[in-house]
């Protein structure tokens, strides 16, 4: 490239305009291919010794290059960082060769518990049990084993272990962060509605 430095050729204008982002993109894609978990932009910037703006430009380039339409490798923003995944077009082939052990066979009880931990965590086992109305020891242990939840500090009053969801949880469920969960108010019916139904039930009961 140096041979063009002093040249007034129009080619020079084209290459230098794209070069820094393109060069940085190479570094970023190298970092992403080595990583086994999503890399936040700040970590990419630190590793590439550049700033957030430059990383943003490089990522823009890469998201275009690694999109469902153009590539078998797709770049996605998930669990607070950037990560490669296989394209949907390759799903069947992938399924023939690979398992998905983390989410395979998650029971309804496990999903409910996971939801409670995601929304209310860090939360202790007894608190989850109280909401679900049953013992959750086994379910919690199973989720910990799957790395979907992990210990996150202790309860101040009783010293019980508190659980929270892991970055892997966000990745498996394709969430950019826990903030991507639907708002609590949008879920289910509110207290007054349930109340009305309870009362309706009570009236039907023979005295």
């Amino acid at each position, binding site marked *: 490239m140096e041979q063009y430095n002093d040249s007034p050729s129009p080619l020079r204008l084209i290459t230098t305009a794209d070069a820094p982002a393109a060069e940085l993109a190479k570094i970023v894609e190298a970092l992403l291919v080595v990583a086994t978990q999503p890399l936040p932009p700040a970590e990419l910037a630190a590793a590439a010794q550049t700033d957030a703006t430059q990383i943003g430009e490089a990522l823009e380039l890469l998201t275009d290059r690694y999109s469902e339409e153009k590539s078998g490798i797709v770049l996605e923003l998930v669990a607070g960082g950037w990560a490669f995944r296989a394209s949907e077009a390759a799903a069947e082939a992938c399924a023939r060769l690979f398992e998905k052990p983390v989410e395979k066979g998650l029971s309804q009880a496990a999903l*409910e518990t996971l939801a409670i931990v995601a929304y209310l965590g860090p939360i202790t086992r007894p608190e989850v049990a109280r909401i*679900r109305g049953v013992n959750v020891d086994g379910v919690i242990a199973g989720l910990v084993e799957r790395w979907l939840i992990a210990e996150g500090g202790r309860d101040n009053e009783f010293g019980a272990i508190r659980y929270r969801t892991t970055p892997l949880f966000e990745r498996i469920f394709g969430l950019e962060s826990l903030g991507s969960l639907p708002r609590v108010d949008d879920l*289910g019916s509110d207290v007054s509605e349930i109340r009305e139904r309870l009362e309706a039930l009570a009236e039907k009961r023979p005295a």
Partner: protein
Amino acid sequence: MPVAVRELELDLDAFEGPFDLLLSLVLREELPLREVDLAQIVICFVDHLADKGELDLDACGEFLILISALLELKARAMFPEEDAELAELEPEEAAEELARRLAEYRRAKEAAHWLRERLDQRRDLFFRIGPAPFAPKAERKLAPQSPLKLVEALRSLAVEPPTPSTAHMGLRFPPTSQFLDRWRSLLRRRSRFDFDQEVEGLSRVEVAVAFLALLELRKQNEIAIAQSAPFAPIRISRADAERSLSWSSTTTPPARSA
């Protein structure tokens, strides 16, 4: 034909009639379970079995299921945990609390449903997962430490450890030389002596060392040691006096045996 467990006739303090009726009364909450002595039911059943004289495994199995269900119901009735909180509330408040809890659980269910859908959407997406994804680390604050503490710790290791004291063992061995001197000076004054007499009043250890000193002197041919019989007094004489002793012992045997 074996009598079905449900037809088992009961004669209890709180109830008299077939087991079946008891069950339905309990389930309809017309008979408070806490007033029923479950042990009596078991005794009735065992009596019934004994009367029949044969073991009806089917009946036993059915009975076990029923009695364990009753036990659980009774235990729950006697130790109300959650319900007690509700019971303390006014009916109005209790209804409110119940509705609140139901709503809370309903939300958890809805959220679980949302997660399930999300999972289905991503069913066809594959990606690489590390061997051990980072878990959020619990905060664990340690007090600030000076690196010099490490130096101190290391220094304490470099010091020669003190020799362990054996004072408690209480065994003190007097030097053999002490007795060597003693025997030599004794033999300068007298040509012979009796060992037992000389060591009388000394401790066992001292006697042993005194004897060692004797053996040492014998080895160096300074003395002669004689004992007429096992456990007889040990006589010690100067080596130059030995000849006269042996001579006298050979010449006057009757005197020695006397």
